Structures are given as C-alpha cells and as structure tokens.
C-alpha cells in the first residue's frame, strides 16, 4: 500500500486536480511553490538524478547542472550561489520547508550541504517573495529529505577514494512498512585537499602543494514518515552536521584560519487531508554554531506555521497560511533577537487544462517594521498541443525582499538598525517546447534590485547601508534529449545563459562601477552533458564553460574564462549473493585546467575518484 494510492482512493477524481509529482510515491500534494509558481523557470532533480553526486556538495551540483554561478573559494571552502547576478544573500534556501540561511550572515555555504543528505532538490528562478518569503530575490533552492514508503528495506554502504588524500564514507538505511517509514543517512568526508597549484604570488611562480585546506565533514540525517490514519500524516526529519575546515588562504597570504560549523536542523510537517482541502502544520528549528579562530557565534531560528489548501472546484485552488519565526543571535560582538510574522495567500485558476493563472500575496512584519505587501503573478499557457509536441508560454512578474540580517543591523561596531529591506522586481517570460523526448526552453528575464545593502568603510570600521541599485537582464536556454542507437540509451542535456547585471546606483554619482557588469558575475555560461548506457554499464561526460569575470566592476583585471570536463564510468552488474556492488570511477577536471573562480584562490586540477558501494 502506498500513500499515493491511498490518497487517490480517498479523494476520488478530485485528486487529479491537485498537482502531484511522480518522483516519489509518498508525495500527495506538491509544494506551494510548484503549484502556484506559474510562469517561473524551475529546475528539479529527483533522487535518481542526484545519485551521481552522492559524494559531492550542492555547490558542485549547481555549478555543473544549472545556470547558477557558484562563487567558490576553493574545494570545500565557502561556496555561495549567484542567481542571475544577484548576491549570495539573495537566494532563499529551504530544507523540508525550513529556511536554512544563517540569520546573522543571511546566506548559506553550499559546500556544507552534501547532496547525500537530501533526496530531492529544486531551483526556482527569479523573485518569489510572495510564494517563498524572505530572501527569494534572485532565486531559491528547495531541498527535501524524506523517507519514502517502499516495498522493502534497504541498506547502502558507499566508500569513495580520491586524489589529494580525500575520501568519503556514506551509509544509508531504510525500513518501511505500511504506516511507518524510517530512513537514516550517515556521512563522513575527509578531504586533505593536498593538490598542486602554481603559486602566482611567489617569484618564479613555483608549483606548490596546497597545505592549509583540509576539510572534515560529518553528519546524520534521519527522516520519519508516519501515516497516522487514512487522512493524517506526520513527517519529521532531523539533520546534524559538523564541519572542521582549514581556511585556504589566497595566494600571497599565509593565514592559518580555522573554522568549525555545527548545525542542528529539525523539521516537522503534520498534514490533514479532507475532501476538498488539506490542512498542514509546520514547525522547525535550526541552531547553528560557527567558531572562527576560536571566536564563537551562535544563532537559532524557530519556526511555527500553518497552511490551508482549498480546492472548491476543478478550476480553482487556494493556499493560505501564516508563519511565525523567532530568531536569536548570540554572536561575538552582540546579542539580538528578532520576531517575524508573515501571512500569505495564493490562488490559482485553471479554466482549461492548457491554461493556468496564479496570484500570490505575502505580508511580513519584523520587529516594528512592516515590509510592503509582496505580490506575484504568473501564467502557464500551452497554446500549441499536438499529438507528439507542445509549446508552452510562461509569463510571470513578482516582487522579492530581504530583511536585513542580524549582522547588518546589530554588528558592533558598525551595525545599522535603520536599514531598510532590500527589494526587487522580476519579470520573465519563457517558451517551452516538447517533442517526444526532445525538449527545449528559452527564458528571458529582467530584474531590478533596490536598496541593495553594502558594507562601506566608515573611519576605523565598516557599516552597511542601503545604497546600490542593480539591474539584471538575461536569457537562459536549456535543452534535453533522450534517444537510442542500437543497444545504447543516450541522454543529453545542455544549457546556455547570458546575463547582464549592472549597477544603476552606486556609492556616489561618480561611482566608476556604474553601468558595468557587477563583480564575479560571468556574462556567459554553458554546459553540456551526455550519458550513454548499455545494460549495466554507463558512461557520463559533463562539460562546463564559464566566461570571464571582473574582480571589481571597473578594474582592468579579469579572471580568464575556463572550461571544465568531467568523465564518469559506472558498472552495476557485480553482486555477491543478495548484495549488489556498483562501481564507479570519476575523473574531475579531466583536462587538468588551471583556473580560479575567485581571484587568487586556486582550484584543483585533475582528480580521480573511485567509488565502491554495497547495497542490500
């Protein structure tokens, strides 16, 4: 018995009108951002899609398979996302619906989010403040871990050995009954990162071995899925993560910084299904401890919310709710609390199967401040639908916002309590064409971000101010194709993005950066992947191109474009008794490209990774 079947039976034909996803059978109702996010570009990875990245971080996944530019300071070092030229803090990150961004820093380090810990990932592009709330300016990342109801229990042990003294161990166990499913994952990564690089800071630019970039990450994720009764379910997950990192200095520096990160994340979702509605309650807790060179900073967020979904007719659906967030920061220079209350409302009207319109609204207050009403609207229209092909038009417009972080407001010295929220407007339009197993999409977007907060030196310290205004325009093209030649099954995916992100307002009228591409934002990015499978043998190739980036908007120095190629070969035909033993060899940076994503932060050259797994 699976929950999907149960739900289908319970709702009868009505359930067909509720958007469902087929990736995991446990899903009954898809998240609101999928059901009401008409007109917005999104990318989704299923559990199977993520299998090739089980020993890698979310930063690697996004860098390889999305137009999101990852500003990486080195392997295992800080890796922050940039959607469409926005900053790292303009990306909302959720795990099981719980926001993960640090309330003090306002962003997440994607190198500390192992893909192994999650079961699904999706990206929503553009400003979605009405649907997703705080920080969804450039885009948002939604991660999910959950125990699915399966036919049998399973156990997986996976061990990877890599170049540069790196290895990773993953263990995953899952038991499932009719009413209860439990999944637990344990991971341990040790990365010595002793890779050679050319030290440009020294006379003669000698080849040296990286000697201060060791990373140890370990964690455990446990997911419980309980079908309490025919119309009630409870999902709860807990994620403990710890990282110890030697902070790799830029070339020319010999700093020996050390950082420890610890996180406790807990989520709980309780859902009640009725004939034409669902009621969902959500709670969560995120406690983080960051110790940098012995200096400790602690933050915590507690979330409590509820949402009601109502489907009065086959054409109409509504989503309403409220959420309270209690934030506490106990940092090295200050202690502060913050309370946030938000209410939201979404509506979708689908007069035909080929047309859907949505309207979303959100109102948020924090402290004694009220963020102006956040609207968003979108349209999906399949204006051409034939036997084997369809052409869909997507149009959306929406607003985003970001509440100033605790550091922005309270850091001592320099914190500025008078800061206004950053805000954005985003419009986009896309065409999606599908023909059999061939699909392409083309998205145009334009986004204005105002009141962009930047920290400026003020005498002996720095202080944040609402100063910058940025305009970002661009085009994103994606395609995929599946085909067969003889006994070989082929899958190919490709993408290209063009982004123009410039400052319209800077620190002064004569700011030399005005009108120029903002730093560390490539105008051009492209990727191509190809996978061939013959029975239990498969080979995967992944290539990426990243265009030049300016270190500052107006500096003559630029970072060169780089082209990376990865190659993976896997075989799943080995087994001993009931134990399957998949093998994989992966070569990253096959061409041994010497490159920097961030100025003077060398990235590793060619590396070989061998993975053996035991699956029961």
């Amino acid at each position, binding site marked *: 018995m699976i929950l999907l079947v149960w739900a289908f039976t319970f709702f009868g034909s009505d359930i067909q009108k509720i958007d469902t996803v087929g990736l995991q059978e446990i899903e009954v109702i898809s998240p609101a951002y999928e059901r009401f996010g008409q007109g917005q570009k999104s990318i989704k990875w299923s559990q199977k899609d993520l299998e090739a990245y089980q020993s890698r971080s979310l930063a690697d996944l996004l860098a390889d398979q999305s137009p999101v530019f990852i500003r990486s300071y080195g392997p295992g070092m800080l890796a922050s996302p940039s959607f469409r030229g926005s900053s790292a803090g303009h990306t909302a990150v959720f795990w099981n619906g719980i926001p993960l961004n640090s309330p003090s820093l306002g962003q997440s380090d994607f190198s500390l989010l192992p893909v192994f810990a999650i079961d699904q990932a999706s990206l929503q592009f553009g400003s979605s403040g009405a649907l997703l709330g705080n920080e969804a300016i450039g885009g948002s990342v939604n991660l999910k871990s959950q125990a699915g109801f399966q036919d049998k229990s399973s156990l997986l042990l996976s061990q990877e050995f890599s170049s540069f003294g790196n290895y990773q161990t993953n263990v995953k166990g899952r038991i499932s009954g009719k009413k209860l499913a439990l999944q637990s994952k344990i991971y341990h990564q040790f990365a010595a990162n002793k890779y050679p690089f050319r030290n*440009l*800071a*020294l*006379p003669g*630019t000698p080849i040296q071995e990286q000697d201060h970039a060791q990373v140890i990450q370990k964690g455990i994720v446990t997911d419980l899925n309980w079908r309490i009764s025919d119309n009630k379910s409870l999902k709860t997950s807990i994620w403990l993560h710890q990282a110890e990192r030697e902070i790799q200095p*830029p*070339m*020319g*520096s*010999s700093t020996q910084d050390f950082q420890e990160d610890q996180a406790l994340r807990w989520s709980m979702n309780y859902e009640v299904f009725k004939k034409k509605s669902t009621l969902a309650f959500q709670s969560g807790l995120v406690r983080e401890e960051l110790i940098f*060179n*012995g*200096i400790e900073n602690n933050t915590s967020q507690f979330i409590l919310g509820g949402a009601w979904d109502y489907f009065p007719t086959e054409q109409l659906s509504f989503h309403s709710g409220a959420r309270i967030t209690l934030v506490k920061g106990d940092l090295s220079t200050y202690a502060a609390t913050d309370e946030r209350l938000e209410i939201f409302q979404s509506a979708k009207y689908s007069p035909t199967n080929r047309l859907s319109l949505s309207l979303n609204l959100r109102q948020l207050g924090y402290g004694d401040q009220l963020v102006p009403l956040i609207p968003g609207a979108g349209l999906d229209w399949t204006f051409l639908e034939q036997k084997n092909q369809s052409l869909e038009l997507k149009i959306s417009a929406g607003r985003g916002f970001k509440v100033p972080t605790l550091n922005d407001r309270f850091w001592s*010295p320099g914190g500025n309590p008078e800061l206004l929220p950053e805000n954005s407007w985003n419009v986009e339009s896309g065409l999606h064409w599908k023909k059999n197993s061939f699909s392409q999409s083309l998205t145009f977007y334009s986004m204005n971000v105002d009141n962009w907060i*930047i920290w*400026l*030196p*003020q*005498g*002996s310290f720095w202080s944040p101010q609402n100063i910058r205004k940025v305009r970002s325009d661009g085009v994103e093209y994606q395609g995929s194709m599946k085909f067969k030649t003889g006994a070989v099954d082929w899958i190919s995916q490709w993408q290209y993005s063009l982004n123009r992100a410039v400052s319209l307002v*800077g*620190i*002064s009228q*004569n*700011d*030399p*950066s005005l009108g120029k591409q903002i*730093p560390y934002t490539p105008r051009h990015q492209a990727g191509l992947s190809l996978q061939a499978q013959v029975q239990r043998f498969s080979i995967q190739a992944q290539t990426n191109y990243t265009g030049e980036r300016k*270190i*500052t*908007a*107006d*500096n*003559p*120095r630029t970072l060169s474009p780089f082209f990376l190629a990865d190659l993976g070969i896997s075989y799943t035909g080995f087994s001993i008794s009931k134990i399957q033993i998949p093998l994989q060899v992966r070569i990253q940076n096959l061409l041994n490209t010497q490159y920097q994503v961030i*100025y*003077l932060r060398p990235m590793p050259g060619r590396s070989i990774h061998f993975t053996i797994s035991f699956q029961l």
Partner: protein
Amino acid sequence: MKTKLLQLGQVFVSLLILFSCIGNDPERPLGEYDRGILIMNEGSFGSNDGEVYHLNPSTNELKPDIFEAANGRPFAGLLEDMVNEDDKMYLIANTGKVEIVNPGDFKSLGAVTSGLDQPRSLTVNSGKLFISDYGPYDANFNTPSSYIAVVRNTLGGTVSKKIAVSRKPEDLISFGKFILVAGSEEGKVEVIEAEKEELVKSIEVEGNPSQFFEIDGKIYLFSSKADKVVIYSFHLDNFTLATSNWYPIANATGKIALSNSNTLYILTSSGWPNYEDGIGVLPLFGTSLQPKWYEGSGFYGIGIDSSKEEIYVANANGFQGNGTITVLDKSGNTVRTFDVGRGPSGFMMK
C-alpha cells in the same frame, strides 16, 4: 635613508646625501618609472589585489598594474607601503611579504616571502632590511608580539631575526647605524642599532606616532591624538626629544604629505556618525594653520606634486571597485579626476 610614498622626491635626494649607508649605482640608466607618479593601490581585504599604477603627469598617461605587467604575475598582496632605498623599490604587503623590484622598470629583483606576519614598512641599514611588523593577532585581535624583522640581504631572502618592539610599529627611518621606529599603539619611538640588531632605547611620546619625515637633516615625527596633532624633533646624538609642537587639528588619520615649502597636508576623518573627511594644512614654520582646508568624504591617501604645486587626494570609493584620484591646485580647486586601482592609499612623486 629612505623615501616613503608620502614624502617628496626632494626629501629623498637630501636623505640620500645625509643618511646614506649604501651608495647608489650611478650607472643605472633611468627607467620609465624613475620619473612620474607612482600610485599605490592597497587592494581589498581578502582579495590580495593590491597593485601600483604609474602616471606620467606630463601626458596624463596612466599605466595600470605595472608590477604584473613587468613580471607576468600579480602582486598578490595588500600593498601597505612602498619604500625607495638603496636604488631598489620595496613593495611591502601586509599580507606577509616584501617584493623587491628595479625602480625603473619594476622587474623583480627578489622578495621576502616567509617569516613575516603583517609587515608595515621597511628601511635599509648596514646592508640589511629592517621590516616593521605588527606580528600575529591573538584571540582578541590584539598584536602583543610586534617586531622588527631583520633580513641580512637587501635583495631579500629569509628573516634571520625578529627584534621585539612595542605594539603596532609603523614607520621606520635610518640615521647612521641606527633606526627609529614609530610604535603607534603604545606611543613610543624605539631606537635599534642596526649592526647589533638590538633595541637600544625607547622614547615615550604622546598620541599615535605614525610618520617620520626629514627637513634639513633633522628628523621629525608626526603623531596624532583625537583633537590635535604633534610634531616632534629629536636630538640625534643621544636620541632624546628636542621639540614638541602641538596643533589643533582634530581627527587626523595618520596620513600626511609634505610639500617642498615645508607645509604638511594632513588627512582627517570625523568618523562616526557623520564621517566627514578633510585635509588640514599645517605650515611647519609658519602660522597660517588651516584645520579644514578641504572637505569631502572617502579620503584614503594624499600626496603632493611639488613641481606643479598640485595635491593628489585618493578616494577608495568604499573598496567596492576602483578608487578615484582628485587633483587639487594649491587653492583647493579641482584640476582633474581619474580612476585608479582598488583602495588607492598613497603616492610616490619621482
């Protein structure tokens, strides 16, 4: 003998004559960068993108990143100071190294790339390099282990000795076989005997001493307190204070420029909450003190082209991108502005 970026070319010549310990090579042909104005761009913290620009004031031709252009590799550091001594140009990066280049073409001659923590400035004496260094930070971001690093080769190499001094040493100046060190945090001038590599004397001063300069064979020290600045001079036979003159110029940042008419131009900043920056003018041997000769914001460096009587003011533009140089005439009128590298913080007029 030294020329720091905040001093004049004329000072360099006089110091060369009066305090030289090692003779220059008169045969070296003049290079492109032996004339004109060198602009020091500190770079941004964490980026190590410090560099030197060269301006030809006759043609206004500006050449960016002259270290990288000459050596095919970036400077890769935060450029704290430039010192022209012993016919060599020393580029001091507070990220832990000293690059030594030919002053004429900026081709690399050597470097000190290990054994330093946060070097600030340098002087050459007795065939050795003496490098002021804050030392490492402790857990509370204090620097209790400041020192003067000794390198026994003017073309760089390894640090052979560290002479402990008071916290946060800044400028150094040579006099004969002795070196004076401005101890900025504890208000001291410390005297080092170069050959013995030993601290031989410590002189208490008020404020935060930051810069030495020389006029007519006498060594002066600029020090500042919240509401005033003080100019000290020394008896150089026994290293005692000779004179101390106080002037009511508030909020001096420690960055100064000296004209050939012996007038000091002093950068000031009000700090929190208004951040009003300015330039105070102090005639060292006159009376027409102007505490607010010029006002603005974002000032990060100052220099004087005495040949044209023009004042160069560097604006770091919040380190968000390139900095801007504003050239003023002696009346404070803007002559021209132009963009330079990130965090422009000083000039060397040659």
